[in-house]
């Protein structure tokens, strides 16, 4: 796919055989049938079309009532939330916070992740509210394949947002029976306290039996930039592609962010490991 200048409204991006313009995407989002709307929302996020009118339309789509699943979900709202997370426009923050009370679990999850990406700490109190009831109430919903709340997403978001005021609520989740939730809490606690004990717990998770968990721990370690994980990541039983992504996260965390790029010996070692995994 070719990148074109996305600033111009007439910009086109060839997707396979068809040409999908920003204008078409907005039109579809506003007036299309449900599946066109759903696709348009996805497309606008994927190609980072952060035009203000696009953001407006996506915010409107967060209140859509027409696109429903049999189970009562709101698919367009989910895609709109996901897209808004990628567009970096903070006007979406308040509407996304409202979505945290949507009856659709997947909308709450998508809104949480979008708020994490937007990085605005005003959402912290609303996120903390989702942890109410603690571990005791963090159970599977009968007949559904998910927990009462998207705890892993909420806790990860709180970690990314630096919500030290949430430490007391997050800490109990270190003992949640589901590993995925436990790891989210571990990751967030590292980000909020910088205590290596949490980083080391994640590193231990790289040797677990479950490939899916190993994969997600790799992503966690990349996200928190935990340098001591590097040699263990190199030997983890998982796809090299994911190990490279994790190492990239750690590398970039440690590179000097000033105008002058400076390569410490730690950074050179990370790159040496990455070279070996290509």
């Amino acid at each position, binding site marked *: *796919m070719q*990148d074109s200048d996305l600033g111009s409204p007439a910009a086109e991006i060839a997707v396979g055989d068809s040409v999908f313009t920003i204008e078409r995407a907005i039109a579809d989002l506003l007036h299309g049938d449900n599946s066109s709307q759903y696709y348009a929302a996805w497309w606008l996020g994927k190609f980072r079309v952060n035009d203000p009118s696009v953001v407006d339309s996506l915010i409107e789509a967060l209140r859509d009532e027409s696109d429903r699943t049999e189970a009562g979900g709101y698919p367009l709202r989910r895609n709109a939330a996901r897209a808004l997370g990628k567009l970096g426009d903070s006007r979406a923050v308040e509407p996304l916070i409202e979505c945290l009370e949507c009856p659709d679990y997947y909308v709450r999850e998508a809104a949480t992740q979008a708020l994490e990406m937007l990085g605005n700490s005003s959402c912290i109190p609303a996120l903390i509210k989702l942890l109410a009831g603690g571990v005791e109430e963090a159970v599977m919903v009968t007949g559904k394949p998910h927990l009462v709340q998207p705890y892993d997403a909420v806790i990860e978001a709180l970690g990314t947002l630096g919500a030290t005021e949430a430490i007391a609520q997050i800490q109990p989740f270190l003992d949640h029976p589901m590993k995925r939730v436990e790891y989210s809490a571990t990751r967030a606690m590292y980000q909020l306290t910088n205590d290596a004990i949490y980083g080391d717990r994640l590193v231990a998770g790289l040797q677990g039996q479950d490939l899916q968990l190993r994969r997600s721990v790799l992503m966690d370690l990349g996200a928190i930039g935990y340098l001591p994980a590097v040699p263990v990541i190199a030997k983890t*039983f998982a*796809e*090299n*592609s994911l190990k*490279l*992504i994790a190492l*990239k996260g750690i*590398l*970039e965390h440690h*590179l000097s962010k000033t105008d002058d*790029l400076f*390569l410490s010996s730690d*950074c*050179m070692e990370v*790159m040496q490991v*990455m*070279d070996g995994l*290509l």
Partner: protein
Amino acid sequence: MIEKFIQAIEEADSAPKLVKAVRDLADAQTTEAIPVLIKVLGFNNPGAAVAAVDGLISLGNIAIPALLEQLDGYNYGARAWAIRVLAGIGDPRGLNLLLDAAANDFALSVRRAAAKGLGNIQWALLATEEINHAQSQTLATLMKTSQDVEWVVRYAAIVGLQGLATELFNRQEQDAIDQILKRLTEIIEQDDTLAVKARALLAQQKLSVSGC
């Protein structure tokens, strides 16, 4: 002794058993293992394939004819692993496949393995009169791959360019080296991925240490 390992592969009834059996065979480091190791590349078992790739790379040039011969009519997955083997060995008989894979394969993991491999070619195995042309093609492909949409492929292209530059230095091809150095500078200034910039800077530093 090796029959035992081959039998273990054929009889493995679980993924972990298969992986272990392949590792045992690869560790035996015998050329008789080559056909079986190549077959394993097509088994749709990543753990076993990785072990087979490592085994074939250790066996080296001697594995190349069989590998090239069995590449046609391969399933895509097996081909992707085979590209890794070629990249790891660096035998110039695999060069055209690597050039094609780095530029055109639709899987980023194949493009990145091929790009890295292009920096690792055993040029001395080529006839002298072929080397110039082969290196020009390699340079052109790596320059193009250094603009790939995927950050990790650009990263691998830099690794490839570093390897190629070292070789070009030995042959005193200063024009080509200058081209590479210029490209590295561009990447440091313009790439939008910090890790890619860093790898270009590292390459620049390593090349200047060796006198390029």
